[in-house]
C-alpha cells in the first residue's frame, strides 16, 4: 500500500513539471517504456541527470560528443538508408562546415578568370537553394520543420564536397586540357550528384513527412539543387 502511495506521489511530482513531460513526448515509441507511471519518473530523472552531467563535464567531452554526433551523421549520409536520425537530432554544424569547404574549393581567382564564382555567391547559392527547397517541401504540405530540411540537405552535400576536393586534385595532377581528366571528373561528379539526391530522398521519404503522392514533386527541386552545384564543380577549372 505504502509502495503504491509512493509511486503516485512520484507520478504527481513528475506531472507537476509539465515542461519535462512536454519535452519528452517526442521521444520515439520504441524507446518508451511500457508503464506510464514509470515513464514519468524515469524521464524526469533522466532529464535532471542529463542536465547535471552536461554542466559538470569538461569542455573536451562536450566537443568530442558533438563531433562524434556529426561524424555519425556523415556516416549515415555516406551509406544512405531510410532513417529519421537527421530529422530527430538535427544540427547545423555539419551543413555549415560542408558549405564553407565547398565554397572555398569552388572559389576561383577573379584576376585570372572574371567568370569564376566568388565565395559569397556559392555560399549564397547553397543556402538560398536549401531554403527554397525547404519552402517548396512545406508548400507541398510536407510535415517537416525548416531546420530539419536544411540539416538533411546540408549533410547530403558530403559526396559533392568530396568530389570537389578530388576534382581539384585531378586538375592538379593531369592538368586542365586532357580529355581523360575531364571525363573522369564528369563521371565522378555525376555519380556524387545522384548519390546526394538518393541520400536526401532516403531521409525525406520517411513516413512522418507525409508526402505520399508528391514525392516526385518534392524530389525535383532537390535534384535541381544538387545538379547545379555539380555543374559548378565540373565547370570549375582553377
Amino acid at each position, binding site marked *: 500500500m505504502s509502495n503504491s502511495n509512493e509511486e503516485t506521489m512520484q507520478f504527481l511530482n513528475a506531472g507537476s513539471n509539465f515542461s519535462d513531460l512536454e519535452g519528452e513526448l517526442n521521444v520515439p515509441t520504441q524507446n518508451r517504456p511500457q508503464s506510464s507511471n514509470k515513464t514519468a519518473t524515469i524521464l524526469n530523472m533522466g532529464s535532471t541527470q542529463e542536465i547535471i552531467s552536461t554542466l559538470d563535464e569538461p569542455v573536451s567531452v562536450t566537443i568530442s560528443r558533438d563531433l562524434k554526433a556529426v561524424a555519425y551523421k556523415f556516416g549515415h549520409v555516406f551509406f544512405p538508408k531510410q532513417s529519421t536520425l537527421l530529422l530527430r537530432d538535427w544540427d547545423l554544424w555539419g551543413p555549415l562546415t560542408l558549405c564553407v569547404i565547398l565554397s572555398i574549393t569552388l572559389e576561383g581567382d577573379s584576376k585570372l578568370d572574371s*567568370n569564376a564564382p566568388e565565395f559569397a555567391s556559392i555560399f549564397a547559392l547553397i543556402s538560398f537553394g536549401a531554403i527554397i527547397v525547404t519552402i517548396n517541401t512545406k508548400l507541398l*504540405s510536407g510535415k517537416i520543420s525548416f531546420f530539419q530540411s536544411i540539416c538533411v540537405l546540408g549533410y547530403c552535400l558530403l559526396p559533392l564536397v568530396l568530389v570537389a576536393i578530388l576534382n581539384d586534385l585531378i586538375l592538379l595532377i593531369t592538368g586542365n586540357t586532357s580529355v581523360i581528366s575531364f571525363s573522369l571528373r564528369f563521371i565522378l561528379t555525376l555519380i556524387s550528384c545522384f548519390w546526394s539526391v538518393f541520400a536526401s530522398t532516403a531521409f525525406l521519404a520517411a513516413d512522418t513527412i507525409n508526402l505520399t503522392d*508528391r514525392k516526385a514533386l518534392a524530389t525535383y527541386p532537390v535534384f535541381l539543387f544538387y545538379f*547545379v552545384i555539380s555543374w559548378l564543380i565540373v565547370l570549375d577549372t582553377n
Partner: protein
Amino acid sequence: METNIQQRKVQSNDEQTSIPMFNQSMAQTVGAYVFNTGKEKVQKTLNIYSHIDYLRPYFDVEPKDVLNRLLYSVIPIKNNNLTTELYGPLMILFTLCAILIYQMKTANHSIEDGTLIGTAFFVCFTYWIGVSFLASSTSFICNSSVSLFNYLSLIGYSLFSYCVVLFIGTFIHTSFDHFIFYSLWLLLGGASGLKLANIMFTNTPHPTYKIGLSLGIFLIHMFFLLYIHFAYHELAEEVSHALFEKESKNDPAKLIETVTEAVKSLNKRSVNDIMSDTRALNDTLKV
C-alpha cells in the same frame, strides 16, 4: 535655515547622482527600444513564415497534372483551361535559371557589378512577374476574365518551351547560322506563344482588344526568347568561330587540297607564278 541647508544638500546630491541616473534611464529606454524593435521584427518574420499557408492552395497539385500541363503548354489548341497553380512555373523558372547560368559560363559572359547567378535569377523572375503584371493590368482594362495568378501560371508554363529551346541551343552548337535554334524557336516557342495568344483571344470579349492583346503577348514571348538566347550567346559564338578557323588551318585534309590545287595550277602558269605558289605553299606548311 536648517531646511534650506537640507534642500541644498539634496540638490547637490541630485547633481551628483543626476548623470548616472540619466545614463541609467537612457540605457533603459534604449534597451527597451532595441528589445521592442527586435520583438517586432521576429514577429514579422514569424508572420511571413505563417503566411506560407496562404500560398498552399497554389501548390496543391499532383505529378500527373504537372506533366500534362507541361505537355499541353506546347500544344496551342487543346486543354485551354485556366489554372492558378504555381509549382510548375516556379520549378520551370529555376530550371531556366540553371540553364542560363550554364550558358553564361560557357559563353564567358562577364558582368561588372554582380554575379552570373544573380543576373540569371533577376532576368528570369523579372520577365515572369513583370509580364504577368503587365498582361493582367492590360486585360483588366480590356475587361478580360483572366486574373493575375492565371497569368503567372500561364506565362510560367510557357517558359517550358524556353527551357527546351535554350537547352538544345546551348548544347548542340553545330553551325553559325543557328539553324537548329531558329527552327526550334519557330516550332516550340511559336507553339507556346500561340497557346498564350489563344487563351487571351478566347477570354477577351471585345473583338479589337482580343487581337491586340493576343498579338502583344505572342510578340513579347517570341522576342524575349530571342533576346535570352543571343544576349548571352554572342561570345560563345565568336570563340567557336575562332576555334573553327584555327582547326581548318591545321586540318591535314585541307592542306592536301591546297597542295593538289597548287600542283594542278603548276601546269598552267608561268615560272614566276610557280615561284609565288611555292612561297604560298611554304607559308601554309609553316602554319
